[in-house]
């Protein structure tokens, strides 16, 4: 088995202790750091995401895999050209005003990070103005992700997206929405660019949006 394959399998199995050692071994064997990241870790997280979507694995296993990957990235970071681990660009993410749910939003943030994005997490109960300010402060941001977990905060999501749509920077960003009560139809109606139903699909979709 190649050293990169070993990294891949350790990440996929969520072996937080094994991953850093496997990454180090791959580096020692002369593997390209970017290949270790992309073909070893990010590819493994893609597989984890696909298995989660298929119902083969569960939320804790996705968390464990992401945690294992993070440990590996720590070892890899000094060897990567700056920004390689976040090469896909910046994403701003948050749960909209009035809504305090963060589990789904955190899962999405984690999967985005594992996919190679730099994630700026604004937290929960985020007013629309704060989303706008965050984009203005990060002109290189590529995607804004807004989450709403309650039927009662769907109007708040609508307002947030409307505010983003009216902003001068709108053509430079993509807006993604998600959350239990959200549907593709609702996303279309409020003018978001994309809706996905779970964290794994969100990461996949984000990659497509910036491709």
């Amino acid at each position, binding site marked *: 088995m190649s050293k990169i394959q070993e990294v891949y399998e350790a990440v996929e199995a969520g072996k937080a202790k094994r991953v850093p050692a496997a990454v180090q071994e791959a580096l020692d064997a002369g593997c390209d750091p970017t290949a270790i990241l992309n073909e070893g870790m990010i590819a493994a997280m893609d597989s984890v995401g696909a298995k989660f979507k298929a119902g083969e694995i*569960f939320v*804790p*296993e996705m*968390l*464990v895999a992401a945690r294992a990957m993070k440990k590996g990235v720590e070892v890899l970071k000094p060897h990567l050209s700056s920004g390689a681990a976040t090469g896909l660009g910046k994403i701003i993410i948050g749960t909209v005003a009035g809504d305090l749910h963060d589990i789904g939003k955190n899962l999405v943030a984690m999967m985005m990070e594992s996919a190679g994005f730099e994630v700026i997490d604004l937290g929960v109960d985020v007013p629309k103005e704060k989303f706008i300010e965050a984009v203005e402060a990060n002109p290189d941001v590529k995607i804004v992700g807004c989450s709403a977990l309650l039927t009662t905060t769907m109007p708040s999501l609508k307002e947030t997206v409307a505010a983003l749509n009216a902003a001068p920077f709108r053509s430079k960003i993509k807006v993604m929405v998600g959350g239990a009560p959200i549907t593709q139809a609702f996303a279309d109606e409020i003018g978001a660019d994309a809706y996905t139903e779970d964290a794994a699909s969100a990461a996949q979709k984000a990659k497509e949006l910036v491709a």
Partner: protein
Amino acid sequence: MIIIGEKLNGAIPAVAKAIAARDSEFIRQRALAQAKAAQDEDYFEEPVPLYIDVCASTDPAVELETLKWMIDEVEAAIPEEMEHVAISVDSPSAAVCAKAFKLCKKPGIVNSVSMEKDADGIVKTDIVFPAIADTEWGCVALLCESGIPQSVEDRMKVFDKIMERAKHYGIAPNRLYIDPLVEAAATNQAAFTLFSECCKQIKSQYPDIHITSGLSNISFGFPGFRKPLNMAFMALAMNAGMDSAIVDPTNKDMVGLMYAVELLKEQDEDCMNYISAHRQGLL
């Protein structure tokens, strides 16, 4: 949770019948059905053992030979790859226990001793403890001396005596499965309170010790509607520190409950055992 499977007991009419007829097939099937609840290495990172209790409940004159037959059948039924399955040798006679455990191929647990005297007048601990001292065998110890003590204080006095004997014979606390005794709630409403208080005190003194119980006693007197009570007892007793139980391992509701409670008690890192149990088909 360390499960002690209760389904091979001569006190169960179907088992008594199989013993009398020397029905190997019956015994082997029951043994294997219980063993299947044991954690499999393919799913669990660190499987805990499961013990299959073997109790003859026959005339004392033929008890040892009956146990030998049962032990041989159970061992024949359990495939070698089920490494984490062993036997719990069960007899009301400490003298029989002390002989019968030697008939097993691998270490399990002796069920049980107490501070009561055996038939020959020697205290049970003093028969079994020296016999298992230089082995890897564990031992269930009941907190009774002459009858069942009716206060926490009195049960803990028996516990102190048992621990003193264990120390004397060099039995480490982690080899002991203390049964604080469960009485029927129908006749003693304080049955659980007594049990849980004992659990807490025992665990605070010896964090490594095991606590077990034949918990279905709690629901005696409620024929046909015992299950909710047994399950409630299991959850609450686990919360008080019980980490083993003498139960039917083929009862998925009960087994599932045990995994669920461990998860809620933060004894299941990243919920992996709960997920593994699901994958192995235990829930």
